[in-house]
């Protein structure tokens, strides 16, 4: 990108500057630290100049927005055209209560829905299962059957919103419920827009809501890819997630590396199942974390886009541009929030959200200030949403595409992250791919090592967390936290009793048998799941049938 002679001159000039003014300054005033590092332990130099990016080739490494390798963004005009989707993850208690929260958020200017399910739903148990005790409606909404989905989206026409569902092991079943609900609303399936998370591999590593062993789980993923490609062309069949691995403790480089390694495994599984790459790849989407180290995060998002484009084009031979585009949702970092002086979290979230926007995210969730303590209240969620709206309408950063490109530091860091991610992907390839690396505990150990190092650095004070290990104050524990009424659990149990009495149980048995046969054989499971949910078979009943055919995953404990 730079003229050779000019670089030589600059090198000489920089050398003189270091021996002259810099050395003189250092004699008088030392720097704050011997060495500077990013949050992810990448070395940070005092100054970046063209010398640090001398190897870069504009066309090869950056290109134009909307063009390969998409480093600068996936659309030609980015936020000058349309802003990102403001999508707050929400759901708690029962379907009626969550429905009220969704309508509130839509009234406040939110542009997409994001459904949080409770743990029993995520792990395939009905609300009346013994293991559901104490967990019903706590971290999300309890959904037992299509009847709950009808309440959850009451008054929300499914062709008017895009809906993201954080559901993994039983993703195909919740997708089937959404599709069944669309039919009841008279909305054609090809008009549905949204996402199922459907990323089972990271559940074995970080988030823990697995049900079945890896092999049948991967088959469910491939089945949903095929079904969506055929019937729901505007639906994201997966959201391959680095977020939870980052929250579990890994750094930015590992987040991208492990996410892309999992993505490679999904693509390979779908190819092995006989799908053509360009039929499903355009609907693969991603989900990343945004932490406090603003410029590192921006570089991370740019590097991830570039890496994915290369992988899809060179490794998998994808031809469509859309197959090569890394489209992603971002959530600000829950693990960076403190329970101490919770208002400080508003500032952290602002920085994180800014990083996501400068990194070119397609949609964004901003955390609320008290989330180190509890689910957020309505007031806190509104403030979090307003944070996005201020960035969108007042900060000015949205008015040109990829505004930090060309910063010597950001470009050097983008390159550094890219190189380190490639080294990780090579290592994981050597281990036999992501699924094997997870089986061997490699990914888990890497994450735990980073988490432990981080904790020690915080406790030693080497890493400053404002309000926690520096600038502390005496404070009263916060009150007015949101609480889920324990009565929800009892009500959900009663609703199940009524449902089982009301529905056509012969049809339930028959459709469940259809699910069992499909699971035992090789046909795509999703159409059979659709029949079962349409007959008001419950999530737990369907998962029990699948558990019978697939078995359950036995986690090995690594620490």
């Amino acid at each position: 990108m730079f003229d050779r002679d000019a670089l030589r001159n600059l090198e000489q000039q920089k050398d003189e500057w270091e021996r002259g003014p810099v050395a003189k300054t250092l004699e008088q005033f030392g720097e704050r630290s011997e060495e500077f590092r990013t949050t992810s332990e990448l070395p940070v130099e005092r100054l970046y100049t063209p010398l640090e990016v001398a190897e870069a080739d504009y066309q090869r490494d950056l290109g134009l927005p909307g063009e390969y390798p998409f480093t600068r963004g996936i659309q030609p005009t980015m936020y000058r055209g349309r802003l990102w989707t403001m999508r707050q993850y929400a759901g708690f208690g029962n379907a009626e209560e969550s429905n009220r929260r969704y309508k509130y958020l839509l009234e406040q200017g939110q542009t997409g829905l994001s459904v949080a399910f409770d743990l029993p739903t995520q792990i395939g148990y009905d609300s009346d299962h013994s293991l559901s005790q104490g967990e019903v409606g706590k971290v999300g909404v309890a959904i037992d059957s299509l009847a709950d989905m009808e309440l959850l989206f009451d008054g929300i026409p499914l062709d008017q919103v895009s809906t993201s569902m954080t559901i993994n092991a039983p993703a195909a079943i919740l997708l089937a419920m959404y599709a069944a609900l669309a039919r009841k609303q008279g909305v054609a399936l090809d008009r549905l827009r949204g996402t199922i998370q459907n990323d089972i591999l990271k559940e074995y590593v970080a988030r823990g809501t697995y049900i079945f062993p890896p092999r049948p789980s991967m088959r469910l993923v491939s089945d949903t890819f095929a079904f969506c490609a055929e019937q729901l062309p505007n639906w994201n069949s997966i959201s391959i997630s680095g977020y939870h691995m980052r929250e579990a403790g890994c750094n930015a480089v590992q987040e991208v590396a492990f996410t892309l390694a999992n993505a490679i495994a999904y693509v390979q599984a779908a190819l092995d199942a006989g799908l053509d790459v360009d039929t499903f790849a355009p609907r693969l989407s991603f989900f990343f974390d945004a932490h406090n180290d603003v410029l590192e995060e921006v570089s991370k998002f740019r590097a991830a886009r570039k890496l994915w484009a290369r992988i899809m084009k060179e490794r998998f031979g994808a031809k469509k541009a859309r197959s090569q585009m890394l489209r992603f949702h971002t959530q600000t970092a829950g693990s960076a929030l403190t329970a101490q002086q919770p208002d400080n979290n508003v500032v952290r979230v602002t920085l994180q959200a800014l990083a996501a926007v400068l990194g070119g995210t397609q949609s964004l969730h901003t955390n609320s200030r008290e989330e180190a303590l509890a689910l957020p209240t309505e007031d806190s969620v509104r403030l979090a949403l307003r944070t996005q709206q201020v960035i969108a309408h007042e900060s000015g950063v949205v008015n040109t595409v990829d505004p930090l490109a060309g910063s010597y530091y950001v470009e050097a860091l983008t390159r550094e992250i890219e190189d380190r991610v490639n080294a990780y992907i090579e290592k994981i390839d050597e281990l036999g791919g992501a699924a094997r690396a997870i089986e061997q505990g490699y990914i888990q150990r890497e994450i735990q090592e980073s988490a432990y190092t981080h904790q020690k650095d915080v406790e030693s004070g080497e890493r400053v967390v404002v309000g926690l290990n520096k600038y502390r104050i005496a404070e009263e524990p916060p009150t007015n936290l949101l609480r889920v009424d324990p009565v929800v659990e009892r009500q959900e149990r009663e609703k199940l009793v009524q449902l089982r009495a009301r529905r056509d149980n012969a049809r339930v048995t028959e459709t469940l048998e259809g699910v069992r046969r499909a699971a035992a054989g090789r046909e795509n499971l999703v159409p059979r799941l659709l029949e079962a949910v349409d007959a008001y078979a419950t999530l737990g009943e369907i998962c029990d049938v699948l558990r019978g055919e697939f078995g359950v995953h036995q986690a090995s404990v690594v620490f």
Partner: protein
Amino acid sequence: MAEQPIRVLIAKPGLDGHDRGAKVLARALRDAGMEVIYTGLRQTPEQIAATATQEDVHVVGLSCLSGAHLELFPRVVQLLREHGAGDILVLGGGTIPSEDISVLKEHGVAEVFTPGASTQEVVEFVKRSVNL
């Protein structure tokens, strides 16, 4: 004679899958010279109490971030007592609102550590509380 190490069971009751804190703490206790067993995810109170008695631990650390602590923690204490192991020190950790801490303590949880607590605080509390 070598000093007998403190034996600790770190457990995840319920369906919550957040175990970053549990694992970091397990490692910190081990680095402080204790013998640590980690149960892994999705343990019922019955399984936790059984493991604690079989492994003859001095301490059970329960971690829960899903909000189900009021149902799950007291049940573990109760089962330990039923197993004749009521002398085991039970600690809690996670996203636990302050007003719940006194309720848990009334039900026999010795101490509750919330976000921001340092592993050294926990190490010191355990060393102070367990008399070998």
